[in-house]
């Protein structure tokens, strides 16, 4: 394997470019076999999104300023969720990805309660898809059983494959080899993804820009998802 520990994967989302189209949400759902819950369940607030869009409204109509925040898991460098897990089903790996080991999870939902960003979803029932979609599930990602917590993994299966391919071709991992589905699918290129440790990567440069900020930075969780604030 590639020597791990020298990457620190991160994401920069440009709010100026984001139109709130929801392509990232859809791409994520398809890529990661995220369950589709019925109308009844979604009435109960049990919708499941690994990538969600938070909409904020500022000001009174007609001078309303609407901002869309695509919200993956923030993959904190100091994650509050991993500390409390009683069985090590979630932890931050050497490359900064906060992983979720589904077969290990006992479903106590402590990590959900501890996450200040509320990014985790729980499988309240066994996941279910419309009949015709069952054959189009992504074989690279497991289908989670009932009763476990799940969340965005930065499409870690793509990293596994990209690393393997790079080593098979006997080269270093290049920028762009590994992109999560949301970043790849964004029609306006609002979501950049890459190695924050690489001084030449795009995300590194963007994360250092004056517009960059992180969600609830004051909590000290050190999220690795940066937003570029809106400018006129």
């Amino acid at each position, binding site marked *: 394997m590639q020597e791990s520990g020298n990457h620190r994967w991160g994401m920069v989302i440009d709010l100026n470019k984001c139109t709130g189209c929801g392509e990232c949400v859809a791409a994520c759902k398809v890529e990661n076999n995220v369950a589709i819950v019925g109308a009844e*369940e979604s009435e*109960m*607030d*049990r*919708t499941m999104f690994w990538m969600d869009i*938070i*909409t*904020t409204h500022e000001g009174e109509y007609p001078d309303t300023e609407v901002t869309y925040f695509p*919200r993956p898991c923030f993959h904190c460098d100091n994650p*509050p969720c991993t*500390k*409390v*897990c*009683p*069985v*090590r*089903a979630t932890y931050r790996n050497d490359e900064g990805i906060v992983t979720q080991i589904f077969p*290990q*999870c*006992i*479903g*106590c*939902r*402590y990590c*959900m*309660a*501890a996450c*200040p*960003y*509320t990014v985790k*979803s*729980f*499988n*309240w*029932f*066994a996941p279910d898809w419309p009949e015709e979609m069952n054959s189009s599930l992504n074989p690279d990602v497991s289908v989670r*059983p*009932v*009763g*476990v*917590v799940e969340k965005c993994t930065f499409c870690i299966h793509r990293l596994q494959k990209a690393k393997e391919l790079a080593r098979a071709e006997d080269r270093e991992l290049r920028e762009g080899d590994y992109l999560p589905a949301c970043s790849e699918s964004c029609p306006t290129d609002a979501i950049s993804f890459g190695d924050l440790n690489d001084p030449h990567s795009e995300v590194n440069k963007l994360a250092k820009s004056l517009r960059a900020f992180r*969600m*609830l930075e004051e*909590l000290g969780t050190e999220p690795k998802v940066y937003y570029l604030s809106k400018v006129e």
Partner: protein
Amino acid sequence: MDKSTMENSNEDLDLFRSIEYTGNGFYWTVGFLIFVIAFGLYGYFHQVLYGLGVTGMAQPISWGFYIVNFVFFIGISHAGTLISAILRLSQAEWRRPITRMAEIITAIVLAIGGLHPILDLGQPGRMWNLVTNGRLQSPLLWDVTSITAYFAASTVYLYLPMIPDIAILRDRGVKPKWLYQFLSWNWQDTPEQKRVLERAINILMIMVIPIAVSVHTVISYIFAMTIQPGWHSTIFGPYFVAGAIFSGIAALMIAMIAFRKIFHLERYLKLIHFQYLSTLLLIMSIIWFYFTFSEYLTTFYGNEPDEMRVFNYKFIGDFAPYFWLMVFCNFAVPVIILSFKKTKTIPGILVVSFSVLIGMWLERLIIVVPSLANPRLEYPVGIYIPTITEWGLFAAGVAIFILGFLMFAKYFPLISIWEIREGRESSIKEVAHRLQSYMPDTYEEDELERALK
């Protein structure tokens, strides 16, 4: 058996009634309780089969009744051993008819409460992961450890002072004989045996107090260790401990009043016992108010936006009815009723006790749900409506408690017989002696002369 013990055992005949006489009411009650438990179990199997979706929990509010009841039951379990240990330690003579009941409450409710997190698991079949891959840094594991320790310590603490009573039952020939023979550990009331037992009880009661305090502190840490608004508070440890003792005393008094009525124990559990305990309850009520006040005042004064969202949700938002009902039940009712001698009667105390239990349960609900319902980011505020499964399991939990208490009363005396006898025989002399030792020292004759010079 010599003559004096014979007389005594006749005198304490009331205490054997629950064991030696079984009425129809007993079977009806047990039958009803088993029905309630079966209903709860049915709900649980339903939940295991289909998933936690059968409960009312949803996305931001991922913890509901199970965790609320977990904290509530463990809170009740506190009173017992802690109160009994404190009363024993302070040599309060009026403890004698109370301690046993308090200890039973602990043992039974702790077992019920301790199992509640399992109800809450999405994958109960993977419990074994806790054994093979547990992480001691998670507050949940602190709980597992300290509840196990408390359960072990409090059952031992219940059992040891029961040995002489079991021996009395054995000598009376109560059936099943083998059970009492097995449990009495060859007790023959020799002075040496008494010394051994008393030494063990003394060590245990000192040990059990810090364990008891640690249990509820650690339970509060489940919440306090996260950085969620409304939870991340340094006061939570003592706040939970105080609340636990508060609700525990109330539960203890309800049990005492009920069993006093059923088994005609008026001669043992007198008004004075209830008045002493209710004074303790009144003090705890005021302490509870003090903690609640400082907890919310700091939040309000600090005015941190995320904290204030939860604060407003409780004070004027969706949870306001529950919040103010809690304040009414936990503070207004006890203070009003227990402050006046006229209302400090058995019915009055019963009302207060129920009110406190309801209030403390609401407090647990108010701690768990609003913080989860108001996430920091701009999500819609969550709602939580418990389903029949959750109510059923709550009822089953209460039913198991009552059933456990009844079954205990069926086989063992609810009031410590030997401690009552000991009190009757020697405590007046001992207390007189003790009082003497509190008195200012009198001068010896030569000392007096010297002092006069």
